[in-house]
């Protein structure tokens, strides 16, 4: 079958994404993202979550200032903290500064991408695109694989 122009364009786009490593930089800053993962949700009533390691490979500090994804109507970086008496609390983290050469870990019990107002259930085995928005105006798109609801880390 002959490809119509639009199909050719779609095929080229697909080829582009296929060659682009996960965490590829769509902007100008030197950000690498590794070990991204999420947990499956039960329906859409409860918020979802995403975790990953974000490395600033550049020479200047940069701040993670926001998130964007189709799966959530209100994605935010939140921080869980546990005080000396064992009480856990969670609140928006605000801007997260990443110094040159530093890695910020979004991990259980600490910083995490909180995916409120899920637009559809997060299904185990699927993945979704999450855009990280940085203070220098750059954006990094991360493909986040959805693991089981009981997953403890990027390897399950």
């Amino acid at each position, binding site marked *: 079958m002959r490809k119509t122009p639009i199909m050719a364009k779609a095929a080229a786009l697909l080829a582009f994404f296929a060659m682009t490593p996960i965490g590829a930089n769509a902007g100008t800053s030197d950000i690498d993202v590794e070990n991204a993962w999420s947990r499956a949700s*039960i329906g859409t009533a*409860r918020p979802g979550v995403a975790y990953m390691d974000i490395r600033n490979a550049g020479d200047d500090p940069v701040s993670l200032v926001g998130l964007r994804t189709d799966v959530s109507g209100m994605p935010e970086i939140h921080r869980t903290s546990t005080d000396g008496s*064992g*009480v856990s609390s*969670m609140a928006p983290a605000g801007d997260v500064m990443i110094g040159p050469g530093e890695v910020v870990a979004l991990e259980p*019990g600490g910083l995490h991408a909180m995916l409120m107002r899920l637009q559809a259930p997060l299904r185990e085995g699927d993945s979704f695109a999450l855009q990280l928005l940085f203070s220098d105006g750059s954006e990094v798109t991360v493909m986040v694989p959805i693991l089981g*609801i009981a997953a*403890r880390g990027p390897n399950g």
Partner: protein
Amino acid sequence: MDGLRPIPLHSMSFRLTDHEGYDVDPETLIGHPSMVFFGFTFCPDVCPTTLSDISGWLDALGPEAQALNVVFITIDPERDTVEAMAEYVGYFHPAIRGWTGSVEQISRAAEEFRVRWEKIPTEGGDYTMNHTASVFLFNSAGRFVSAIDYHEPPEFAVPKIRRALQDKKEGTK
């Protein structure tokens, strides 16, 4: 841990409902060692992590863990109905039971376990819960033995559970 520890189970008087609709109270736990923790199913971060950690500890203990009561008590009874608890605990280790009740019933249980909890409004009319995230261990006589802090590594957690399993004495600590 601020010197706060749960009172003995036999001094408690809470009454709750488990995720299969059965009435439960402190007597449900006495006679077997118990592991009890508080959380809420709308928590995306700490609570699934705690439930997964516990599932891992139970797997590590293997047949030894069969004698253990494992109970997750919600501190968010408005959203965590019996049905919500049943749906949620089903995704984790089959030994884990989910208990809920009215706000008054949950308040009493939390007070007896010396658990602190607070409802925190968030943007858009939602709310989250601050709560004690420790896991409490009781011996078969119902005495508090020790607590496992949030996300404590298994090499510390599993021996603590083993100690509660083996502790037959009436009064420890």
